[in-house]
Structure formats: C-alpha cells, structure tokens
C-alpha cells in the first residue's frame, strides 16, 4: 500500500498500534477509543452545525471548526453505538493538531489501513470513510 507512506505521523501511530495487535485485541483497542471520544459540551456547536454521517447505521454527527489553518474536529455518537463511536474517536484524536491542508491530504483509505476488515467487516468500515470525507468536505466549504 504505497499511500500509507503519506500518512501523517499521528494517524500512522494509530495505524501501527492497531496492526501491532492480534485481530481480537484490535477490537479492544477500538473499544478504548470508543470510551474516550471527547464529550462536546452543550453550546460549543450550534445545533444546525452538526452534520449527520449518513454512511453510518447509527446516529453519528460531526462538526468541524476551522480558524485560519487550525482545525478542530468534533463528533457525537450514542453509547449504544460503540463501533461508530470508536471510528469517530480515532478521527477526532488522530486529526487533532493537524492543519487544514494536512487533513485534506489524508489518504481516503486510512480506515482500511487499520487492519479491522476481518474484525468488524468492510460494511461497517464504510461508515468511517464517510466520516473522513465529510470532515474534508466541511473544511473545503469553510474556505470558500
């Protein structure tokens, strides 16, 4: 996978953490991410600034705050959807501190590089790809 060379350091570190584990333990790591999705305090994001990630089976919402080059990605997902929460949390943690251009340059196949295909199935991974492209789209729209 040539594109993995272009992965930013924070995402590459997450990928390496997953790939270092046996498949069942990768699910446990995903659960740790799910447990540590940063809570977004009420009022931080206006209600109509949350975007529903339609690719996910569960109600998950993202919002991206762009100020000049700095980007903050926020996500909300219910506790009864831990897989989706885990995906959102990986992106929130992994994209933290990256510039808008760095996020836009993130390879779209990042979700497929985590070695989760056999653990959670391709079907479920598509939700994470959907989150990533919606984050990028929000960043692009914010610069107009």
């Amino acid at each position, binding site marked *: 996978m040539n594109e993995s060379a272009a992965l930013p350091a924070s995402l590459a570190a997450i990928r390496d953490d997953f790939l270092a584990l046996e498949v069942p333990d990768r699910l446990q790591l995903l659960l740790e991410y*799910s447990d540590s999705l940063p809570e977004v305090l009420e009022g931080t994001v206006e209600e109509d600034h949350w975007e529903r990630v339609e690719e996910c089976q569960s109600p998950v919402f993202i919002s991206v705050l762009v100020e000049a080059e700095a980007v903050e990605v926020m996500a909300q997902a219910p506790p009864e959807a831990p*897989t989706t929460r885990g995906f959102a949390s990986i992106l929130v943690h992994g994209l933290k501190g990256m510039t808008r251009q760095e996020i836009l340059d993130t390879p779209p196949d990042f979700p497929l590089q985590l070695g989760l295909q056999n653990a959670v199935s391709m079907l479920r991974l598509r939700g994470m790809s959907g989150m990533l492209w919606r984050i990028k789209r929000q960043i692009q729209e914010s610069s107009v």
Partner: protein
Amino acid sequence: MPVPFDSSPDLSEYANPERLVGVEWLAAHAGTPGLHILESNEDILLYDTGHIPGAIKIDWHTELNDPVVRDYVDGAGFAALMQAKGISRDDTVVIYGDKSNWWAAYALWVFTLFGHPDVRLLNGGRDAWVASGGEMTREIPHPTPSSYPVIQRDDTQIRAFKEDVLAHLGKPLIDVRSPEEYSGERTHMPAYPEEGALRGGHIPTAKSIPWARAANEDSTFRNAEELRSLYVEEQGFDPNAEVITYCRIGERSSHTWFVMKYLLGFDSVKNYDGSWTEWGSAVRVPIHTGTQPGEVS
C-alpha cells in the same frame, strides 16, 4: 440435562412458549449447567461495553456468514463455531440482542437451519435486561471448548431463495420493511444507505406489515391475542398456508419469522434472506411500486 422452560403466564398463550424466556427467568437460571447465553447485536462492540454476566458474543456478520460467498457457514463451520463457544448439541441456548432482538432472531434462525434443538430468545432482548436493572459486566468468559457434531444445514424448511419466491408469487408474502422502502421511495432503510439496492419497491403481491407492529415499545413481543388479531384477523393470513417473509438482508424478517412460526404457530414460514438487496438488484424480476401490493403479471 435439559434446562426447564419459562412457564410464566405471560408466555403461555403463545403457540411455542418454550422458545421464549423472560428477564426474570434468565436472572434466576443464569449459570445453570447446560445453559448458554449468547448476545447477537448489530454493533459488534456493544457486547464489549457491557453484557449479561456469562454471556458470549456471537456476531452475525463475521461468524455466521461465509466470508466469501453470500451464504451462511456450512456444517463444519457451524460446528467449529459452537465448539469454540463451548456449546454442545444438547445444550440450551438463549439469545438476546439490541434493536428489539433483530440480530438475536436472525441468529436463532441460523441456529434453526442447523436444527439446534433448544434455542430460545430473551423476550425484549438487551433493552429489557437493562430496563429491569439486570447486572452488566465487561468480563468476557472463556468457555471450555465443546464437541459439536457436523450437521448439514437444512435450507429447505425455513429458508427461501429467490427462485422459491418467484414460484411462490400469489401465495402469502410479507414485506416487513418501512412503508417508504415498500413503496419504493427509498431503496434502503432510513440511515442504512450502504445496504441499498438498484431498484426501489416491493415484490408484487407482498403485504406491507412492518416488523415493529409485532413488538411493544419496550422491545418485548406483543401478546398472542394482539399478534393473532394483526396477522390472522386484520391481514387474513391462514395459519395453515405457506408464508414467506423478507426485508432488506433478512434480519428484520427473522423477527417476523419468529413471531409467525413460534408465537403464532403457523405451519410453514420461510425467511427470504436474500431479501431486497438481492431482489432489488436482480435482473428481470417483477417489482411493484407504491403502497398497494400489486398483482402477479
């Protein structure tokens, strides 16, 4: 040794009450030798966030499906799965799950394809257990591997294929999806876009009876009288007729399949697991759009 049935009066009116247990029964019987509790969810991590003590996870997607062909595991695959989970052929299996037991009913249906003799659902599923204040744990049991025979899957009794449905047109057929999916406005369930089909609508002659009409707000099944009133009196289905149910990928229709077969005691109920993701993408099969069932052309 067989585990006793739940003989509580709220189950006794169903045709096959031995296929259901209530949360009180489960709380009282958990830990009985020969009783295995399985959790089957839509979300593969939900079990790991907390489950009924002693319960083991079973995943519909990564464990019950064949990894290559769109089909279920074969006899050897099912035996290996049961062995790994410590389940023997004469053990009692109680399955519960999220989403009003969709995936639990689906798992139970797959167990029935292999003729596992004693498999039951927890009435109300995960929601009911949580609502009752039942204990939850993150501790994952490590079962001692069992021996389980290789049983050939029997696809003839409770499973329908596309060809079977084509030959069945004109006989009782139930579409349990949402009204928008039935009419063809949507090709997927609201919020499930990745499991769509190329065309929208329903199989001609199918009646629209969304699965949720068989469930209460708290995820338990409606009582026998309410179910009979819905399927037999309101919709006019004959308990002696052959019925086929379908949805999008066969999980919601497993719920209705369970209701008609075990709670109402219909003679012959089959689940068409190919469902709309197959039919709605198949070439030259008849499709009807709109709110009426339509006719056989």
